[in-house]
């Protein structure tokens, strides 16, 4: 008997009862998370964007946030961030065409990311107000590594894409295949492995700067 069949046979023997049919099991599973508000923090009526900013800039998440009146303001905002940190003009960028095609002339935008890249700019398809989290589905346009290799991570998200809860973000993928990798990013790469002290920039970004684009 194959290892697979052995393990499954052992499971069935352990459970004893004859297996229920798939429909019954699925109905039981669906009933386990019936009232979402009982199993997640209730958000008061405050605006999702406000809540997101509050969480993202909290002392636990440690991101910085800037709200831009329109996408056109993005290149200037990125430029100013680089100037403030004296980081030079080079940015590894993973943006959808509509943002990639803005006027970036003053900066040196590149589509590849090096192993010791200083600054990466990437586009988050959604964000979660509950925890101040950015959602990055992998795609040819936005590869996963843009969120992990650079010391400075600049993330762009549209205000309309900031959703109240995790489940709302997952909902966006219902009915279509999940991306190869779906990464929820809450802050920067950190560790508490030495004496429980929180330190940022363990393997990935030490700084996360979030640029929220209001609709124009």
């Amino acid at each position, binding site marked *: 008997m*194959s*290892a*697979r069949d*052995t*393990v*499954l046979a*052992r*499971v*069935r023997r*352990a*459970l004893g009862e004859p*297996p229920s049919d798939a429909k019954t099991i*699925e109905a*039981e*599973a669906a009933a*386990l*998370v019936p009232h979402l508000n*009982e*199993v*997640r*923090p*209730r958000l008061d009526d405050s605006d999702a964007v406000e809540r997101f900013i509050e969480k993202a800039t909290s002392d*636990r998440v440690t991101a910085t946030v800037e709200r831009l009146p329109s996408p056109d303001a993005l290149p200037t905002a990125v430029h100013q961030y680089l100037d403030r940190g004296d980081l030079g003009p080079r940015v590894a960028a993973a943006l959808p065409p509509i943002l990639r095609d803005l006027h970036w002339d003053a900066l040196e935008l590149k589509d590849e990311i090096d*192993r*010791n890249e200083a600054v990466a700019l990437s586009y988050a398809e959604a964000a979660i107000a509950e*925890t101040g*989290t950015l959602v990055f589905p*992998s795609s*040819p346009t936005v*590869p*996963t*590594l843009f*969120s*992990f290799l650079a010391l400075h991570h600049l993330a762009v998200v549209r205000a309309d894409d900031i959703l109240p809860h*995790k*489940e709302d973000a*997952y909902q966006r993928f219902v009915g279509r*295949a*999940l*991306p*190869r*990798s*779906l*990464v*929820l*990013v*809450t*802050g920067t*790469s*950190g*560790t508490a*492995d*030495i*004496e*429980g002290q929180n*330190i940022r*920039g*363990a*393997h*990935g970004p030490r700084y996360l700067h979030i640029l929220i684009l209001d609709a124009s």
Partner: protein
Amino acid sequence: MTITYTSDHFKEQAHQALGEPNLQRALDRTTTLLQARRARAYAEFEEFESTRDAASRIKDHVLRHLDHYLERFETAATAAGCKVHWARTADEACAIVVDLCKAARAQTVTRVKSMLGEEIGLPEALDGAGLERVETDLAEHINQLAGDRPSHIVIPALHKTREEVSELFREAHGHGRRIEEVAELVQSARLALREKYFKADVGISGANFLIADTGSVCTVTNEGNAELTMELPRVHIVTAGIEKLVPSMDHAAVLLRVLARSALGMEITQYTTFLTGPRRPGDRDGPEEMHIVLVDAGRTELLADELAPILKCIRCAACINHCPVYGQIGGHAYGGIYQGPMGSVLTPMAASLAKAKDLPHACTLNGRCVDVCPVKIPLTDLIRTLRERIWQQQLTDRPTRWGLGLWGQVVRRPALYRLASRISARALRVWARGKPMIKRLPLDGAWTKSRDFPTPEPGGTFMERYRRGER
């Protein structure tokens, strides 16, 4: 590869741990902090009890229909392009991983911390196969340099002080400096590990959850080392226990909300990643092959047992952080891979009850672990069940059996019991010579070897004082 358990030397190891000032300092610094952080996180989460109920019910449900979910997961993961492997034993799981590494002609392998990997002896198996193994989790990197096992399932190098880490990095990272700041130590490791991520041919990770309906593997980390390990090498291998399944992403969301709060007092970890299959056409990163090894290694035996609730464990370590015994002796004394209350139940599975018989007895049954468990595992009941088995299988040493047998005879006769308590309470007061604690009990020196016994209060036994209306 079968690992060596030293749980049969628990008493000596615990005794030794109590006398190690560095360990005591490290334990004190960290467990206090973790308890406070968890308390703060739950104080801000009003829905904790209902979420905990739901989390517990989800795990019960999955275990009850484990065969269904295993098959469902296999189908979905295969459809996403993964290759699913099954392993009956720890050795079989290691052999599958080593063979996959050989097939990939791998020289360097990066690893993300996975307790299952530790349990099945995967680090030893990779070393044995001549592969360069690189532990990427900071704590596991420290342990690898020190040649230590994890002393805590979430913070595996909890036993190390910053001074000791500094000493290890001084040589291993080749800079020869004595670093004092924790932040600088982290930077030193960052530089050393960055090159290895790119050099690796195979990345090996575990799974916090396996999502049955999508075939996804969910991992949570704060360091971001998991993603660099899973995305960069050409081949990615996941090893996961068969109990890691959840029905869907929404079910995972419930468990994720209690996992990070219970472990580190956080609402969410910095990175939560769902991987569904290998690189797709047009992708610019991701592995070309993704393998998932589903491991039994004793789990189906537990499933048939009254100890089955331990399979609900999500490895958050809240029970460990709140265990007064762990707080005194640390993780290595347990002599296995898992520590504290959950370890006292799992180590007998992974080693054997005979080898781990002292662990269920190293528990005061105070129940703090049960109060903090996010999936409501009745840990003290399970520990009591193991104690019964140790007794039934006659694994207890003869003087203890004889003593407990005698005690059993006495307590079943109330008049005799009261007389015996009266005599011993008075005798002990004389023996204590006015001190509040007794350092060595007459006739039971072994019991007081590693603990003190409180001197009975004046005024007689509880029953005597109760009758007089004093209690």
